[in-house]
């Protein structure tokens, strides 16, 4: 009996032990299964990545080809040295003895009197400078006519020799130094209105340009300074108009820089500028010389100007008029100008009077004539904005009554940049009835100085 109990105990122990082992084996199996599943997933991911890599990667041959290309294009140290040497040589253009620079300005716009868009002008300015000794300056004026053809004019061409700190010799065709508007204010990116004051354009009171020599320069004192420009030139020519009764009268002064002096009489003139205190400049101008009638306009067809310099124009009957013996008349100009700036506020003005004497001999003998014009203008750049309102009043008295004009001009400018300006100008014009001088108009303009 004891033996049977002992066997039962042994069996019970054995089963217990086996059960324990079986339970332990099941846990390990589950663990192994999980590990295998995880490894399987990892293997699939690796295979996927490898497949992707295989698809995206380049072949060995391609790698070699790429390496070859890289080697071919790589800049070696020697090549870098060569390039640096070449750069050093090419850098010499930055410090040559001669500098070349193109500046200038252009403007486009719209005018309500012609109801047309227009190209005002393209005016490139060329500068060639030899060290600080001499400079060649030249400005072209390129415009488009109503018929679409292009006109090119030589606005000025001068050689400027910087003699010393106080004197510059200017030779060639230059803008008239009489007054301020023509020589410094007329470029469209500088002029604050879209038009010139009446009398400061062609055949007005102010001379435009001349051909000859100038001495220009300035002097500085303690808190003040002065500048000057004196010139001798060929001077202007005159236009006469033939009346019905075969009498003549002076029609206009052509002062646009002639390269020959038909009467051999030189014109002398200049301007003195004083800057007594900061922001203010006062200028006095004068010119004196002789001028001769070289052109005649026929009263019946004033728009068909005969080009008659030294020529023989036809009179009303078609007979030729010989202008060779016309005498040189007195020609005198007087002007005064001022300008004052303080921060964004500016006021400036100018008065000019051109006077031509009478002639009692010659075909075109007539009384003398006077052209007179003045304007004053004020503008204000509104602080912290780019808007600039402008107002100008002008009064031009011409020897030809139909060209006389009084004008109020109001403008508003927008400064896109300091040299790119949009302008809107309205002119209230008062002139001879039923002429252009009496017609009010809108002017819109984009002006760019470069």
């Amino acid at each position: 009996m004891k033996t049977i109990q002992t066997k039962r105990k042994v069996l019970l122990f054995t089963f217990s032990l086996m059960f324990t082992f079986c339970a332990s084996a099941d846990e390990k199996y589950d663990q192994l299964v999980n590990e295998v599943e995880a490894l399987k997933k990892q293997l699939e991911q690796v295979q996927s990545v490898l497949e992707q890599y295989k698809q995206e990667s380049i072949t060995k041959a391609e790698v070699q080809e790429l390496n070859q290309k890289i080697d071919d294009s790589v800049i070696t140290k020697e090549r870098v040295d060569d390039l640096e040497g070449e750069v050093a040589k090419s850098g010499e253009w930055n410090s040559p003895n001669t500098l070349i620079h193109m500046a200038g300005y252009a403007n486009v716009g719209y005018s309500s009197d012609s109801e047309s868009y227009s190209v005002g002008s393209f005016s490139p300015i060329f500068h060639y400078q030899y060290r600080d000794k001499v400079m060649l300056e030249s400005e072209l004026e390129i415009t488009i006519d109503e018929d679409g053809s292009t006109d090119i004019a030589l606005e000025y061409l001068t050689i400027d020799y910087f003699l010393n700190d106080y004197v510059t010799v200017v030779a060639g065709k230059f803008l008239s130094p009489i007054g301020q508007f023509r020589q410094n204010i007329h470029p469209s990116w500088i002029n604050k209105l879209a038009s010139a004051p009446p009398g400061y354009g062609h055949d007005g009171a102010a001379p435009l340009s001349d051909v000859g020599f100038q001495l220009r320069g300035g002097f500085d004192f303690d808190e003040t300074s002065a500048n000057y420009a004196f010139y001798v030139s060929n001077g202007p020519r005159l236009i006469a108009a033939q009346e019905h009764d075969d009498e003549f009268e002076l029609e206009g002064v052509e002062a646009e820089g002639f390269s020959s002096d038909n009467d051999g009489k030189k014109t002398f003139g200049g301007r003195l500028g004083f800057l007594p205190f900061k922001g203010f400049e006062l200028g006095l101008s004068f010119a004196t010389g002789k001028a001769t009638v070289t052109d005649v306009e026929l009263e019946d067809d004033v728009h068909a100007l005969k080009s008659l310099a030294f020529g023989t124009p036809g009179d009303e009957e078609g007979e030729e008029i010989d202008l060779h013996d016309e005498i040189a008349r007195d020609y005198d100009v007087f002007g005064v100008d001022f300008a004052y700036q303080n921060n964004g506020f500016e006021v400036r003005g100018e008065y000019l009077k051109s006077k031509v004497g009478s002639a009692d001999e010659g075909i075109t003998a007539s009384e003398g004539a006077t052209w007179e014009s003045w304007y004053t203008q004020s503008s204000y750049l509104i602080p912290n904005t780019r808007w600039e309102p402008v107002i100008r009043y002008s009064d031009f008295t011409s020897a030809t009554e139909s060209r006389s004009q009084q004008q109020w001009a109001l403008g508003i400018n927008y400064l896109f940049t300091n040299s790119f300006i949009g302008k809107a100008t309205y002119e209230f014009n008062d002139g001879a009835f039923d002429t252009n001088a009496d017609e009010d108009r809108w002017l819109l303009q984009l002006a760019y100085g470069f």
Partner: protein
Amino acid sequence: MKNIQKNMVKFVAKPLMVLSAILITSLSFAADYPEKGDFQKGAKAWAENCARCHNMRDPKDLRDDQWITTVFHMRVRAGLTGQKTRDILTFLQESNNPPQPVKISSRSSEANNPSNMTGKEVYEQTCIACHGKDGKGAVPGVPDLTIPEGVLSQSEEVLLAHIRDGFKSKNSPMAMPAKGGNPSLSESDLLNVVAYMKSQFKQ
């Protein structure tokens, strides 16, 4: 991988070296004429003479060599003396070449050094040409320093950064060049002039 890195170095670094060499070489070639003028006098002459006829142009509108021809052109037109021309040109060219950025550490050490100039001296030599004696602005586009809640109400750090790096006010047609165009100003000079402006002009 190593080859790719090596090639990247060849591709990027060496061209950068060449480009740097080009830039450095270009900058080092400046015309040896005319003689150098006076920066401070040039700033004053620039503000007083250029606005006689036209809007002020930013020094950065033109390259250094283009400024030579332009200023000589203006010498003839405006009746400037040779010396005034050289002064204006010096001001424009130096304003056109802002100083290299200064490292923070050197700024700190520099700020600890005693200044060579007082704030008043810096203002009168460099700032007055554009900002005016009264701080209200001498040329178009320059902000009025006397306005309450104006530019001087900003923090010292902001003002220093604007002066150090240059700044363009909103709607202003021109920008103030870095350090007012005077690269010789030290960090302590800038600190002094900020303090001076605040004491003089801030309402």
